[in-house]
């Protein structure tokens, strides 16, 4: 305001200059009159005043710009942060979907199993019921769809807010990632930041002025929406023709006059482009744009995106940017997700498994259990505690509490000292079984032909407590040769001995021997190598040195299933939930048997040497195997692929790993070796 007046006055001054006199008195009265009196008669104080004034004004503006710039920078940082957050969120969601799909897969397998009793020779559940739903009646298909619907519902429940965020993140990413990268960053490269911000700020200011002057928006109030629309419009417009503008700061006035028109004129086109781009890119987002605009209002921080979105919607849907969104919102979000899952169909399982791979835990050796003088033949975890029992060829068993460790010298692992040493066997102890939870007992079988029942000392016991004979329970002496395998379930004990029999016991009963299982058909009974309960302890699976596998019904004591293979078997385990028997063989194979039909469901070369140890995790998803090739391998039962290999023990003679085990509750696995060590992995 001051400049123009001064100028005006100066022009007038020529006129006045002609007049004579009226000197100081006038100049005091009126500056205008004073200046002209000397014909271009600027008084020093006047000039100073003017300059001072201008200076102050510029300073003020500058500080204002600075403030605004800081604000913008903060905003950018925030948006960038948000974008990252959203990306993480999305990843998480995708993972969740994968998990749910996996669960669905498992369910399908289970359902299948229940339905056909047998199944799961697609035990490689993997390329799942593409066929099954096709062949069987449509009822199944419906059910399948139902399941999908259910999962969608779950997703909706779980991820409701997440999906919104996801949509938003998409938008933000698109606006920031695409527009900003293309349009903002280029100008950034071309123009010095200060200048850019200065211009930006000017735009805003002038926009605001325009509004006030022209009274274009009703009320002429600087409301958030107005500002942000102006602002972004200005930004985009500005970037466009900034290149043409070579003006410097002195031409502010001109700018003041021109800019608004340009801005508003350009705005239309720009935004049109904008909208198109956005719409093309996020086809499905259109409905939510209005909503997004609303959000922009609610959260001033996301003004940039919000307002752009609102522009887009304004252009796209005209002024009718009403509440079209709300209802469509969910289908939209789910639509996206559904698309995800549907598109997963063909190759999803690979993706899922690949994903799983990356999220899978790897086991690392943590505890080394050294105290046995000779090879550790067997080990078994406590049913609940972080404790285990090992059985060794040094004739003893030892109880270990993993929570009482001795810091080892090497940082790699912890040494554990045994809590208790069980002495009673007079020969190497060969096998071990843990009793039921809370029974606090374990059973061991030895080369001496005895099976001993032990009462476990409390895990807090001191290794140097006085000897308590009550630790020794009953002794079962019916076997006449080495006892090589023990399994306990439902209060009963199953043993396999080199005397050619497998026996079932009620270990603490007055007459403990319940049944003797013998292969009646063989003239000279082959020696059983291992035995395990199957089918909720109603059956017993016994493998023999000659490679045969017999399934005995424990009611009748008769063999109900007989399969054979060429290679001597060393171990047998029954799957905790499915009617599958897993056997380990000297020919390096692990074989999977259908416990109903007796069909060999799968056979694989699992190791480089005889397989000696087998353990299934309590959920039946993983299989652990040990071998004389010194390695422990973890297998995904689903895909029958090895997911981890651990070299764990050294050789003594030609033996290496003798047993492996899973903790029934806790995340521990363990291996026992001929080198006298046991190792626990977490």
């Amino acid at each position, binding site marked *: 305001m001051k400049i123009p007046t001064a100028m005006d006055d100066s022009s007038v001054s020529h006129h006045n200059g002609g007049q004579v006199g009226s000197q100081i008195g006038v100049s005091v009265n009126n500056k205008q009159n004073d200046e002209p009196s000397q014909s271009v008669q600027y008084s020093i104080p006047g000039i100073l005043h003017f300059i001072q004034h201008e200076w102050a004004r510029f300073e003020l503006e500058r500080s204002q710009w600075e403030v605004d710039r800081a604000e913008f920078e903060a905003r950018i940082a925030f948006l960038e942060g948000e974008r990252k957050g959203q990306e993480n969120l999305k990843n998480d969601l995708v993972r969740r979907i994968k998990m749910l799909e996996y669960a669905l897969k498992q369910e399908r397998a289970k359902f299948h199993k229940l339905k056909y009793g047998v199944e799961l020779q697609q035990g490689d559940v993997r390329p799942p019921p593409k066929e099954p739903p096709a062949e069987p009646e449509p009822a199944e298909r419906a059910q399948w769809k139902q399941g999908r619907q259910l999962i969608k519902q779950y997703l909706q429940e779980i991820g409701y807010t997440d999906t919104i965020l996801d949509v938003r993140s998409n938008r933000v990413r698109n606006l920031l990632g695409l527009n900003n990268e293309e349009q903002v960053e280029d100008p950034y490269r071309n123009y010095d930041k200060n200048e850019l911000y200065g211009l930006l700020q000017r735009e805003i200011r002038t926009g605001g002025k325009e509004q006030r002057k022209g009274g274009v928006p009703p009320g002429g109030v600087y409301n958030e929406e107005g500002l942000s629309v102006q602002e972004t419009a200005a930004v985009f417009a500005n970037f466009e023709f900034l290149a043409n503008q070579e003006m410097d700061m002195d031409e502010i006035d001109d700018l003041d006059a021109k800019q608004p028109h340009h801005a508003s004129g350009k705005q239309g086109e720009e935004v049109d482009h904008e909208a198109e781009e956005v719409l093309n890119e996020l086809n499905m987002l259109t409905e939510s744009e209005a909503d997004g605009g609303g959000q922009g209002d609610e959260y001033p921080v996301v003004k940039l995106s919000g307002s752009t979105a609102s522009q887009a919607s304004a252009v796209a849907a005209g002024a009718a940017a009403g509440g079209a969104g709300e209802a469509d919102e969910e289908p939209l979000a789910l639509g996206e997700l559904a698309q995800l899952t549907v598109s997963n169909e063909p190759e999803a399982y690979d993706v899922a498994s690949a994903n799983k791979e990356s999220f899978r835990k790897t086991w690392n050796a943590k505890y*080394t259990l*050294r*105290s*046995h*003088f*000779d090879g550790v033949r067997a080990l078994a975890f406590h049913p609940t505690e972080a404790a285990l029992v090992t059985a060794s060829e*040094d*004739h*003893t068993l030892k109880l270990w509490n993993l929570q009482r460790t001795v810091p*080892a*010298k*090497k940082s790699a692992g912890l*040494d554990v*000292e*045994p809590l208790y*040493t069980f*002495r*009673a*066997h*007079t*020969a*190497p102890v*060969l096998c071990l079984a843990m009793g039921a939870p809370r029974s606090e007992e374990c059973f061991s079988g030895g*080369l*001496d*032909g005895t099976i001993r029942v032990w009462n476990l000392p409390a895990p807090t016991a001191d*290794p*140097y407590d*006085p*000897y308590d*004979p009550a630790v020794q329970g009953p002794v079962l002496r019916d076997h006449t*040769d*080495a006892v*090589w*395998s023990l399994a306990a379930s439902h209060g009963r004990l199953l043993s*396999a001995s*080199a005397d050619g029999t497998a026996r079932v016991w009620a270990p603490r009963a007055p007459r403990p021997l319940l049944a003797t299982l013998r292969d009646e058909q063989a003239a000279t009974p*082959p*020696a*059983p*190598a*291992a035995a395990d309960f199957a089918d909720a302890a109603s059956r017993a699976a016994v493998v*023999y*040195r000659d490679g045969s596998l017999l399934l005995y019904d424990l009611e009748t004591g008769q063999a109900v299933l007989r399969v054979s293979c060429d290679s*001597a078997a*060393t*171990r047998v385990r029954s799957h905790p939930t499915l009617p599958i028997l897993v056997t380990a063989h*000297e020919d390096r194979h692990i074989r999977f048997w259908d416990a109903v039909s007796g069909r060999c469901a799968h056979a694989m070369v699992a190791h480089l040497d*005889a397989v*000696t140890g087998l353990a299934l995790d309590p959920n039946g998803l993983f299989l652990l195997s040990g071998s*004389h090739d010194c390695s422990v391998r973890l297998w995904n039962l689903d895909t029958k692929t090895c997911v981890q290999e651990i070299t764990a023990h*050294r*050789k*003594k*003679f*030609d*033996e290496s790993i003798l047993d492996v085990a899973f903790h029934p509750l806790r995340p521990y696995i363990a291996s026992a070796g001929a*080198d*006298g060590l046991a190792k626990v992995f977490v």
Partner: protein
Amino acid sequence: MADGVQVLRRNRPGSKAKDFCRWPDEPFEEMDSTLAVQQFIQQTIRRDPANLEAILKMPEAQDEGVWKYEHLRQFCMELNGLAVRLQSECKPETCTQMTATEQWIFLCAAHKTPKECPAIDYTRHTLDGAACLLNSNKYFPSRVSIKESSVAKLGSVCRRVYRIFSHAYFHHRSIFDAFEKETHLCKRFTYFVTKYSIISKEILILPKLDDETPITQPVGESEA
């Protein structure tokens, strides 16, 4: 291993007790395992537990520390057998203290402050403590080479372990004799500690054991 294809020295599940570890001997030179010394010692013992000369004849170029260490491990392991037998007869009520002859009461060193454990506890604690020490990662991290300072630890283990023999000899003679007949363990132990001068002679209070003329009455003399 040249014969590795034919002979796999393994105890396969299901094998009979009499076949346990019944495989052709492997020459010590061909053992390439880190546990070669243990394998060799066990192999020689299995061949003839009474042949002390053969059992304690150290192969050439064998580190003596490891040799002694592995033998002591084997002793402690086999002593479990004696402890198992003693558990049935040696009660805290009857053998309230660890004594050999009437002159000596041994204090159990497994506790923070040594204390008078009953004989059976002393036996168990000593064996447990020996198992801990001999498997200690600190003193015996390797079974291929052993520090000189750790070899020095073997002496105290031997001294304590010897007391188990002497207690059994003087107080549970029938058990001792039956066990000795089977394993020749005490004889081997005495031979071992004498050969390598691990325990001074005067501590060896048991009379010289001889199969042909078993000593029927305990000799009550002691060293101090």
